[in-house]
């Protein structure tokens, strides 16, 4: 009786109300409105004009949409695969007892992650600039090249450069997450395996890796969502141009460009939803393949 009278469960609604209010205004409404706009033609001034599926039909035939998607995937893949593998190796190494200066290395590897991506993009652009960049000058001073190379002219190099920035920025972050996962693995299992004479490599593939699978899945899925949103680094690296030859134009850059510099808000919204569909498909694929593997591993 007494305990019932002091329960005040309806207060819960009051506690969660502010969040939902703000979410509906600034989270849900923008998405729903963007969805509506994706079926309209709107320049931001007059009234949006409903045009049905016209924007989506335009996407299907839009060379730049595919190109930007292709760029995004290429840049993402070239950064995320080395990122997730090297950071795993580093995590395992830095989890070893014999390594000296662990916390120093963790801090140094993690540091680029908290530096503003916009600053990094600009900095790398400066270092790789043609006539005055320190990279060319370094190569010249040690005699590898005799004339400065115009890196900004080379589509694949610039894509690689964006991937490198992303790799450089995120490998320390994924390393920390792996280390957190490793710390969750009971030491007894590893010690037992060691006593049984299993080599480090065997322990890694047969014990560590399977036990880390949930963490790896977490990393893969978050990196897909994050990877599809690549914007800051290529934008500042190329001064918003996505050059050379639109090789570094990512999907979000194309979306930004379409809506906010060419004022095609309707089409820009459609690009956002097109991109979202791609993200969902990739997330589902990675989720099911990882799950399949888990099941096979258990069987």
């Amino acid at each position, binding site marked *: 009786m007494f305990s019932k009278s002091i329960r005040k469960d309806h207060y819960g609604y009051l506690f969660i109300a502010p969040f939902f209010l703000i979410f509906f205004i600034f989270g849900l409404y923008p998405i729903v409105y963007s969805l509506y706009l994706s079926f309209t033609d709107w320049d931001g001034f007059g009234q949006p004009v409903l045009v049905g599926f016209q924007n989506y039909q335009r996407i299907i035939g839009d060379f730049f949409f595919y190109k930007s998607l292709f760029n995004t995937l290429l840049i993402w893949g070239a950064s995320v695969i080395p990122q997730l593998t090297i950071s795993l190796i580093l995590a395992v190494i830095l989890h070893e007892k014999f390594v000296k200066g662990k916390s120093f290395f963790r801090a140094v590897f993690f540091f680029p992650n908290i530096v*503003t991506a916009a600053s990094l993009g600009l900095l790398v652009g400066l270092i790789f600039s043609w006539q005055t960049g320190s990279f060319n000058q370094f190569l010249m001073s040690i005699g590898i090249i005799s004339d400065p190379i115009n890196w900004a002219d080379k589509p694949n190099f610039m894509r690689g450069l964006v991937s490198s920035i992303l790799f450089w920025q995120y490998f320390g972050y994924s390393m920390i997450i792996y280390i957190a996962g490793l710390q969750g693995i009971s030491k007894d299992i590893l010690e037992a395996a060691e006593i049984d004479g299993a080599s480090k490599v065997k322990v890694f593939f047969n014990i560590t890796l399977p036990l880390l699978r949930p963490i790896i899945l977490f990393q893969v899925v978050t990196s897909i969502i994050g990877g599809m949103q690549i914007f800051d680094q290529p934008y500042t690296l190329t001064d918003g141009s996505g050059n050379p030859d639109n090789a570094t134009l990512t999907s979000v850059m194309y979306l930004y460009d379409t809506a906010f510099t060419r004022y095609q*808000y309707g089409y820009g919204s459609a690009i956002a939803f097109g991109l979202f569909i791609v993200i969902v498909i990739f997330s589902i694929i990675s989720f099911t393949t990882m799950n399949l593997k888990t099941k096979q591993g258990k069987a």
Partner: protein
Amino acid sequence: MLQTSVDNVREKAVKAKNKKLSHLFVHLFLILLAIICIVPFYIMIIYGTHTNADIASEFIFLPGQALLENYQSMRENMNIWRGFLNSLIIAGCSTALTLYFGALNAYGFAKYKFKGNKLLFWFVLATMMVPQQLGLVGTFRIMYILNLLDTYAALILPAAANAFAVFFVKQFIDGTIPDEIIESARVDGASEFKTFNKIILPMLAPALAALGIFAFIGSWNNFIGPLVLLFTNDKYPLPLLVQLLQGYYGTNYGVQYLGVALSVLPIIIVFAIFSKRIIGSVAIGAVKG
């Protein structure tokens, strides 16, 4: 007999030597990677102290004497300290909102068994999977309707609905705050909100500190948000100002390097002091997330 024991000793010696060698390689690998992480920042600081003529002529690895000169030319077009202040205001207020309303919401979900509790909580979690860019155009529109375009509020207010914060704090409450505390506060006649503000909130401090670091860094580094929602240079946070350097000082590289350096240095300093704490909170967030 003797022979085998000698062999054994030899084998052990070889093994120990190999082990030492592999340890050496591991350390070399780590040091090489550390150098790769540091070099760009070193170049940035060194090049910021040189004149354009120096920079154009050869590879430099020692500091120069043009620091003041570069700083003065940067100040002509750009108020980088104003950018700092803007970043601090936006990131500071965003973080405060994220923490308070995140905790409030998490507490509501954790300690009140109202109808639809589970369903609504799943809804909050699901919003984490939706990429921000999806609503970019709509965000611009709602800020226009609410007359919030080109204001700090446009960047701060949405921080009150941070799903990750709710998830993170709820985990913490579930694990550390017993119902008895709340019940005894009720018996003593405290109102529900007073209980939350005076008793629960202080108990959440460790979780909020970790979460606060995340929220602050995220807001401090936000680029596309202010790019779309702010138009006045005076209101620009640091990332946007830094991006403007290219336009203002296209060929004055020393000034550009210095501008980037000034935008990064405070982060280096803060990180040098709090690195353990920052890394720790990322690790906590990852395990819980």
